[in-house]
């Protein structure tokens, strides 16, 4: 035992003996190897994430255009952003899209998870098919659907004399967002199915046996047994998908490019406009507003989970 390598506590004890060691133990209380493992990560993280975030926050209070000098102009960017219809519309679209897509994804994924967990033929094969979109690039999937929704569907609808789809919905400023909901859900549903399936297999079959002994029919079993036990998984899915949908960018760029007009321009796309027209500091203010909204939803969702007794 005498030849033991230094554990972190022993190292700390030894360091405390000299005056220099006291200072060292306050700053670096553990074995140096542990510090070598964590300090580079902290430094890189600070440099690449926190520093730009702070810098951006400061810029949002200036008239910076992306280069040259700038001066402090207080809340002017924020006031202008709140009054800007382009920015307001982008929030309107993004929130409407995120809420709708979140509901669609959860409802469809839960139904499919139930079906894929039931006694169907070729269950393995069907699961493979339904999981596939998960690994595909959202942008490229959008390009494929641009052609299907924009060209193929109107031709088919024309042949069938089905008026609502005879012209591309992506070219209609009131309906284009539905196309984006469809494609974003198409990409997001597989991941949600996997989480629901994990929830379904965690429900012991005894619970269903007990329910059927008590005379519950299939719908009652779902309502009283499956749904309550799946609720934590429903929360996980809601948080994961809502967070992703708020940052929507690939799919709007691929499907509509933000159009027609600016009807489907997401918040992310609006922020990136800060590279043009000297709107750098202005869009940084927009980014900060977006950050606060994201934070609000994140905290809200986390507290919901806590109350439900779910784990993060």
């Amino acid at each position, binding site marked *: 035992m005498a030849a033991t390598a230094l554990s972190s506590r022993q190292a700390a004890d030894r360091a405390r003996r000299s005056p220099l060691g006291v200072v060292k133990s306050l700053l670096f209380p553990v074995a140096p190897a542990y510090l070598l493992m964590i300090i580079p990560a902290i430094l890189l993280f600070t440099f690449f994430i926190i520093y730009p975030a702070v810098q951006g926050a400061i810029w949002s209070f200036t008239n910076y255009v992306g280069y040259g000098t700038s001066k402090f102009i207080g809340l002017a960017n924020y006031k202008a952003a709140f009054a800007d219809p382009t920015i307001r519309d982008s929030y309107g679209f993004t929130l409407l899209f995120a809420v709708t897509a979140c509901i669609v994804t959860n409802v469809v994924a839960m139904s499919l998870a139930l079906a894929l967990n039931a006694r169907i033929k070729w269950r393995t094969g069907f699961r493979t098919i339904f999981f596939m979109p998960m690994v595909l690039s959202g942008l490229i*999937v959008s390009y494929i659907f641009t052609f299907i929704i924009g060209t*193929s569907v109107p031709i088919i609808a024309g042949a069938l004399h089905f008026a609502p789809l005879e012209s591309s919905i992506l070219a209609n400023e009131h309906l284009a967002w539905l196309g984006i909901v469809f494609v974003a859900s198409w990409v997001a549903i597989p*991941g949600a199915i996997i989480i629901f399936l994990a929830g379904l297999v965690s429900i012991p079959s005894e619970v269903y046996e007990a329910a059927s002994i008590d005379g519950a029919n299939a719908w009652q079993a779902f309502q009283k047994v499956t749904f309550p036990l799946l609720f934590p998984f429903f929360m996980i899915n809601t948080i994961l998908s809502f967070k992703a949908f708020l940052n929507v960018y690939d799919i709007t760029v691929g499907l509509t490019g933000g159009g027609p007009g600016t009807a489907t321009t997401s918040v992310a796309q609006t922020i990136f406009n800060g590279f043009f027209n000297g709107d750098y500091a202005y869009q940084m203010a927009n980014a900060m507003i977006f950050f606060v909204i994201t934070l609000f939803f994140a905290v809200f969702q986390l507290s919901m989970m806590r109350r439900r007794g779910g784990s993060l």
Partner: protein
Amino acid sequence: MAAQVTVAPTAAQQVGIQRRGPMREGIRVNWGLTIVVAIVSLVILVPLYFAIAMALKSPAQTGTGTGFTFPWPIQWGNFRAAWDLTDFPMAFSMSLLVTVIAVAGEILVSSVAAWSIVRNWGHWQFKATFVYLMLALFIPFPVVALPQVKLTAAIGLDNPFGVAILHIMFQLAFNVLLFSAYIRGIPAELEESARIDGCTTFQVFRRIVLPLLAPMAATVGIFAFLQSWNDFMMPQLITANPKWQTLPVIQYLFQDQFTTNFNVAFASYLMALLPTLVVFLIAQRWVVSGIMRGSIK
């Protein structure tokens, strides 16, 4: 936390793909539901068929049709044309470069950091570090994109290396969370006995801890692979030189040229989609169980 770590893999196995062959006798197949599922699966299969059919046709064969007609005779030349037009080998290499660095970096940086934090949890500095790193969970890329583009350009990282580093940094919080939950389930006694045998801290990590982390490393690696390969937002904004762009961004950059020949465009899309699809079909069980472990945390 420990309970989750042990429960998740078994759940994953049950959902996994191991159920081969005919079902046990005595369990009736629900044919009605099977037909419904088959019809719904067309929502996935038809667009994929469409993409393949389009990629194998000539513009004349597409004509003013819907694009759903069966491609005959097959135009393999579309792939050659797309390959040359977009310089596919270059874009593929860039995607591969970003993905390999991101996967290796995410596993290495976050596992080491998580272990260091968990094993020194008694010190407030490490608790504070953990909370500090978790801040990133609340910072989506669009919020810091503008300053980050300037920053990476200023230090010469407006290239695939910069993209890979940012991928590692943005995922750090989530990955440290995954790894630290997992490490808390590993008894410290194992490591103590290795120390008694004379291992240094680094050796303990490499010989004892790292092998035990394999399942969680697989999860982190799968997430990293899918995210880095398919990412569009970050490379598009960070990488300045269009020649160094990854596959998804290349599809975006060539949209204007693609409008003259949609069939070449679809050939190009398919080639960009193929790598993740192939990996998924080969390693489906790991991918599914990995995603499950990561999400149910």
